[in-house]
């Protein structure tokens, strides 16, 4: 029976990144993906003829350019298009737009407050400073503060030195930033509700916390430290939807000789004397490997696939308590024509960016209150985007694909499993909100895919539908992600590695967990990762 060098469980983008690097290093790698397609939370699927949906993730910024280059993804079809700003609609019929042009952006804010307009630069400066600190950590394995291996000490020193280079004022600012709520943070700069509501979004996306919960300022950073072609903080559309990222990865992987099997649902990880030996599929087939890597989240991997009796108690305890709470849903909609927003002047560029309908932080927080009570938000926060305003490949001419990311949406409805009726009612809440600002929106709908945490978990395997494979709060970052002592992609089972977003530096279509995991595996195999670029300089 064939034995692969590496069996990869899951064909999400991180699994594919790891697989690509390992295959390029000369190993024989097989990717086992339970779905009939690859991509995990980064896919594009045609569910109604002529329309391609970015089913889960929908915008690209975090994906590391070093990886795109190393794995030759442009050659395999990846193109990321930068887009401009967006707008939040206010209940009085106005909107606050965000523009790329610095002075237009200031004038737009000045419509609401001259002070806030002039405060934006200081805000952006402070956030950028924090990003510049974090960015170089993305493409490095976090040090293990409990090991006294020279490498860990060296990495700890690196961290300490970076921190030590700070002035006391900067150090204080950083510690505050990591622990503050996004609402408190914004209050220090801005006075206008709508300005704060607009900027707060990045602090709560994908997170089961409200804008007033401590720790959400850091989540903002996570959404700010990406880039499009060197423009830090910018976001773009992957041409052809987010599936373009993973189809390019799959193509690159296959081009270097790798094997992908879709429809291969792994039900167990085989071990022999504490060492992983392969994966068992739903039909009982065994796929043998010298090493096994799991792209599934940490809960799925250790609570569902590995025999729990083979795992240390404290480790299991930590895995069980790793916070992975679903908080988001998604509507993917095929529209007959471009929606109209009477509040926007005709020809406004805003329609090509993020559109929101939540104009105060209080409304967001109330939405979170509903989540705590086990209900989807009656007045949800929606991040609506129309990629087809810039990407001609996703819908027939004149028609549009609309992606609506929705928060908050609980993993269970008042303690019960989601029903189809719940799902439809959830969708209706969202459509109603959009229709309030876009008359005729409902009539334009040709097809719609509604995804609550139930659908996201069932399809992508994200436990509870948590989009980041575990929340990005500071207690679950760096050497605490996912479990202290196991933050270096290795696990208590010899020969079993994890490479998904549950690991450092976390979620989003970033690829860094997958790349770092490949580096550690190659290190264990004493293979020089010569084909792996180190992180771009932050100067």
């Amino acid at each position, binding site marked *: 029976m064939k034995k692969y060098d590496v069996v990869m469980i899951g064909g999400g983008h991180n699994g594919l990144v790891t697989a690509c690097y390992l295959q390029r290093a000369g190993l024989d790698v097989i990717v086992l993906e339970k779905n009939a397609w690859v991509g995990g939370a980064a896919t594009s699927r045609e569910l109604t003829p002529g329309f391609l949906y970015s089913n889960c993730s929908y915008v690209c910024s975090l994906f590391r350019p070093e990886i795109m280059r190393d794995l030759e993804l442009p050659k395999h079809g990846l193109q990321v298009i930068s887009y401009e700003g967006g707008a939040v609609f206010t209940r009085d019929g106005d909107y606050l737009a965000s523009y790329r042009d610095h002075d237009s952006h200031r004038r*737009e804010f000045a419509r609401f407050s001259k002070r806030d307009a*002039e405060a934006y630069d200081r805000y952006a400066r402070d956030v950028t400073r924090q990003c510049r600190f974090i960015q170089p950590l993305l493409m490095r394995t976090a040090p293990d503060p409990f090991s006294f291996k020279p490498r860990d000490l060296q990495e700890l020193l690196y961290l300490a030195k970076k921190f030590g280079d700070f002035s006391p004022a900067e150090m204080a600012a950083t510690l505050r930033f990591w622990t503050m709520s996004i609402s408190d943070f914004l209050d220090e700069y801005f006075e206008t509700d709508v300005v704060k509501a607009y900027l707060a979004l990045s602090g709560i996306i994908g997170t089961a916390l409200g804008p007033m919960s401590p720790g959400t300022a850091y989540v903002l950073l996570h959404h700010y430290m990406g880039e499009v072609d060197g423009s830090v903080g910018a976001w773009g559309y992957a041409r052809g939807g987010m599936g373009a990222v993973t189809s390019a990865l799959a193509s690159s992987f296959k081009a270097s000789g790798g094997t992908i099997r879709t429809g291969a649902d792994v039900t167990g990880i085989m071990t022999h004397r504490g060492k992983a030996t392969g994966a068992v599929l739903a039909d009982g087939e065994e796929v043998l490997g010298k090493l096994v890597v799991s792209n599934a989240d940490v809960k799925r991997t250790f609570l569902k696939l590995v025999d729990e009796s083979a795992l240390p108690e404290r480790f299991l305890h930590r895995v069980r308590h790793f916070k992975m709470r679903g908080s988001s849903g998604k509507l993917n909609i095929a529209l007959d024509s471009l929606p109209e927003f009477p509040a926007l002047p005709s020809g406004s560029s805003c329609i090509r960016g993020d559109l929101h309908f939540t104009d105060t932080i209080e409304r967001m927080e109330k939405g979170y209150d509903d989540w705590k009570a086990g209900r989807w938000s009656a007045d949800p926060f929606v991040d609506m985007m129309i990629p087809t305003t810039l990407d001609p490949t996703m819908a027939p001419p004149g028609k549009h694909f609309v992606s609506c990311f929705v928060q908050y949406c609980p993993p269970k409805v008042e303690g019960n499993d989601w029903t189809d009726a719940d799902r439809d009612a959830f969708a209706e809440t969202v459509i109603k909100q959009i229709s309030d600002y876009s008359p005729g929106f409902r009539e334009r709908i040709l097809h719609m895919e509604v995804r609550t945490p139930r659908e996201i978990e069932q399809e992508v395997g994200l436990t509870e539908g948590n989009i980041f494979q575990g929340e990005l709060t500071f207690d679950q970052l760096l050497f605490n992600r996912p479990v202290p002592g196991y933050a270096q992609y290795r696990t208590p089972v010899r020969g079993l590695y994890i490479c998904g977003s549950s690991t450092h530096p976390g979620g989003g279509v970033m690829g860094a967990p997958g790349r770092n995991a490949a580096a550690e595996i190659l290190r264990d195999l004493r293979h020089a990762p010569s084909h792996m670029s180190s992180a771009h300089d932050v100067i």
Partner: protein
Amino acid sequence: MMHLTAFNRAEQGHILTPRLETPFHERLAALSETNEWYSWAGYKAPHSIFDTELEYFAIRSTSALFDISPMVKYRIRGADAARYLNRLTVRDVAKLGIGRVHYTAWCDDHGHVLDDGTLFRLAEDDFRLCCQERHLPWLLDSADGFSVEISEETAEIAAVALQGPTAFAVLEGAGFAGVETLKPFQLAEFPHADGSVTISRTGFTGDLGYELFAPAKAALSLWDRLWAAGGGFGLKAIGYDALNRARIEAGFIVANADFITAEAALHADRERLPDEIGLDWLVDPQKPYFNGRDAILKARTKRTLKHVLVGLEIEGNIPAEGAIVYHRGKKEVGLVTAAIWSPLAKRNIAIASLSRPFGASVTDNLWVEIYAMRELQYQKLMKRARVVPRPFVKLERRSATPPGRF
């Protein structure tokens, strides 16, 4: 008063003109032969109007009109205005008489310079602060506990600089009677159309010159009045490139060109104390408490100042823009932030930021490495540099009162 929502909506259309036109734009556009525009704080501003070389000589030989409307302007009024500004800025505002202007700077709590600018005392409790960057949140936050009203009036006030040896003659010809009594850094109001214009004897060229401030709606008639009078005195409209040459000769610094303002700096080590950018002479340790005072004085007594801004004279005639400065030709000690061949001084001059003690106690044996691109090949030159006082040129006519007519 318009309802707030209605006001906000009326302003939505700003995005249709992402580059605003200053109140003088119509005239500049009509005169522009080169059509070389850039964005100055979101306004269309000319690099040049007809010929940078000749525009420069208009400043130095006849007179030049330079539109400074995009300069950021704040109005500070109220019973505590002087006390407030004294706490805000490093120079003593109590010494700034009514109808006087002074150059000043303001700092954050760490003594790092937020900006430099000019402060106009229009009346006992009415001031105008002009600067390069925007500071409304800082100004408002600093106003806690003071009875002051602060407003941003950049768009409402048109401003134009009239500089050069015939500047006074032009004003006189335009009928601004009494302008001859203005001493340097003095201002007065003069009737214009159905209102008035504030004229100060200030400028950014080191030459005889004035700056005129008027409500935006009076801009064109003011321009026309000057232009009509200027015909016989060689008055020309100029762009920034010519002005920049004159300001380097005068040794003036530009925020976020010759130093990085504290609120803009992404790298904490780019922030500068006043003494590190040649503004030590503004700081008045005798006056009541002002923001940044303790940090500045501490750095002085503990001798922890890290940088110094100096004027350099460089051998040869190749401008050293962006050049690295070395000590003994080997040790890197700083950077040239602005440099030109000075037509007036006939010297190769530069402004540079150096790491102390170089440029402060160690001034010998400094060199600059100039990379001069000539027909797709870099000529690498290592040239000796001498620390010299700024301004690089000093003109008697700048301060002569009454001023000369040419």
